């Protein structure tokens, strides 16, 4: 594994020496990051969130402020203009953003856990030096894998990269690309040789300011995370120098699978944030609203439901934190990541749905925010690996532990 640098992750000290700390323990820097991102979300995102959802457009001010706050290069080292924190830091940031807006959260999630991460792990020194500073300071990136005829069956992709001398010519279309509407840096999975099957798939970095032929087609009108751009991208005879191949020719499938395993933890964190945000928007109301002379939050039927919800959010959060810590520690985490994403997306959907019911009529209106969390939660079961794919992956892990070899 090509690590960007071996950074010493801060030691988590427990109160009792020698005893591992609880997985909810955060370092001082992580606590500061968490409250800093929370302040950012409340100050810059919250006032714009209803408008962005209605217009289905990310406010450019939010993007600018995210770059200024260092949120677009959370793990990028300081000498490449980044914030120099760990993957866990990204996870914390994604959760705090999702508490306010799932769309802003996913924009930052894709930038950090997919785009930047591919450079950290697979790019050479020249590519890192060229692209990471821009991604940290002023340029949005996106990860281009899905096509109209290849979603879960990702490696049936058709985008073609034809070798011509020292370059490759890219032709094809991608759909459902998050950040596609605002990005200038594209990590494109294309095949150099369809006869080789998945072994022909290669990852190319395309910079639309250097390479011509990239165009944004339609932007999807969506149920949720509406302010996040979900774009059709067309690559029309895009000439890319050979030095823009990330890692090696034919390694694209490996890059995609491995990076999505990590990005999965980011999505799980987004889902935990959405569930938490829905609760935050709902619980105070339950003690302001009185019916039959009682605060509705004091009816036992309600109590049992919100206790259940709080428990599930806590469980989902622990799964996310632990998966992220395992990754930072260099331990195997694929199973943990799949479980975290599967569970967290279910919790987000259930919690947001219940929150609307608890709020009653006002929960059904836009101004109370809860209906937006409900709509935003649904994508968690779909993108970066559908829930069925997660179950399929997990079943293999479970079988391996029991089946006779």
């Amino acid at each position, binding site marked *: 594994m090509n690590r960007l640098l071996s950074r010493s992750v801060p030691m988590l000290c427990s109160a009792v020496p020698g005893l591992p700390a609880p997985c909810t323990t955060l370092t001082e*820097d992580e*606590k500061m990051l968490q*409250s*800093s991102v929370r302040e950012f979300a409340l100050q810059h995102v919250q006032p714009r969130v209803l408008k962005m959802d209605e217009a289905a457009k990310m406010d450019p001010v939010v993007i600018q402020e995210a770059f200024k*706050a*260092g949120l677009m290069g959370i793990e990028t080292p300081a000498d490449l203009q*980044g*914030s*120099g924190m760990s993957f866990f830091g990204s996870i914390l940031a994604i959760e705090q953003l999702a508490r306010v807006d799932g769309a802003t959260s996913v924009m930052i999630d894709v930038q950090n856990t997919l785009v930047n991460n591919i450079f950290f792990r697979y790019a050479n020194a020249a590519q890192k030096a060229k692209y990471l500073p821009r991604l940290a300071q002023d340029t949005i990136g996106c990860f281009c894998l899905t096509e109209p005829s290849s979603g879960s069956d990702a490696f049936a992709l058709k985008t073609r990269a034809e070798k011509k001398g020292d370059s490759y010519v890219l032709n094809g279309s991608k759909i459902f690309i998050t950040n596609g509407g605002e990005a200038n840096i594209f990590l494109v999975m294309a095949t150099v040789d369809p006869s080789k099957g998945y072994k022909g798939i290669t990852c190319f970095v395309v910079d639309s300011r250097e390479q011509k032929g990239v165009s944004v087609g339609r932007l999807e009108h969506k149920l949720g995370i509406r302010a996040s751009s979900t774009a059709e991208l067309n690559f029309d005879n895009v000439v890319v120098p050979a030095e823009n191949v990330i890692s090696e020719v034919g390694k694209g499938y490996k890059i995609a699978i491995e990076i999505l395993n990590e990005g999965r933890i980011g999505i799980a964190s987004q889902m935990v944030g959405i569930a938490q945000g829905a609760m935050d928007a709902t619980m105070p109301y339950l003690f302001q609203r009185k019916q039959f002379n009682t605060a509705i939050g004091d009816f036992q039927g309600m109590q049992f439901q919100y206790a259940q919800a709080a428990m599930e959010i806590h469980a989902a959060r622990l799964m996310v934190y632990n998966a992220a810590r395992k990754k930072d520690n260099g331990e195997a985490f694929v199973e943990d990541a799949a479980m975290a994403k599967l569970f967290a997306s279910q919790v987000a959907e259930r919690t947001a749905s219940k929150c609307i019911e608890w709020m009653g009529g006002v929960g059904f209106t836009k101004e109370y925010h809860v209906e937006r969390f409900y709509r935003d939660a649904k994508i968690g079961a779909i993108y970066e690996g559908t829930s069925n794919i997660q179950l399929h992956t997990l079943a293999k892990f479970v079988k391996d532990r029991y089946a006779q070899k």
Partner: protein
Amino acid sequence: MSLMYRPTAAQQMKVVVGVKRVVDYSVKIRVKDNKVQTDNVKMSVNPFCEIALEEAVRLKEKKIATEVIAVTVGVKKADDVLRTAMALGCDKAIHIVVPDAEAATLEPLAVAKVLAKLHEELKPDLWILGKQAVDGDFGSTPQLLAGLIDAPQGTFASEIAVADGKVKVTREIDAGRQVVELNLPAVVAADLRLNQPRFPNLQSIMKARKKPVDTRPIDKLGVDTKPHLATVKVEEPAARKAGIKVKTVEELFDKLRNEAKVL
């Protein structure tokens, strides 16, 4: 039009900011056995100290201040407020450590004496403190410090402007606003409307790790911090009673005189 005080190589403008770690302003305070409960309660930088820090960092960004130092007088755990101060842009920090048992009885006069001792050592041009801490609400440390170091003070500051070796402080007073011009070194007490504090960006959180914190126990300073006040009682405010409607002026007069006893 005032000339901006641009320090030459020979002139370094040093600003020291006092920072206090307090119970977070959003926490619901509970009182037990005449003591405010602070176990497992969220602690933060005092809001007025945040404003003081922001002002100092802005002076540095305008290239008026060349060095900003954060100081806290508090328990061992209070170093977290210094980390925040450095993440916001302070160059270094000093932590005067107070044993946990003493912290509850530490008074503004003791803190002012400690800061006055540091003044002899650091010789700053400007002290910026929050006007009051939201736990004790004494609102007197800046004034006591100014008195002890024989420096002019600009309290309840809603605006400050440094120029030509002086600081102009706009003070919010009952009659409106008053502007005073103070020779440096001076003590300024930040009020609510002085500025809107920033939150640290992620790069500066990481940079803060490398900045030095000078940690010293309070008893090594040779300052008399003996308390002179004893807390007799602490209780939560009385629960708000519902109001009543009166039918006549006579009834109103009767209630005001005999029940509320304000006439």
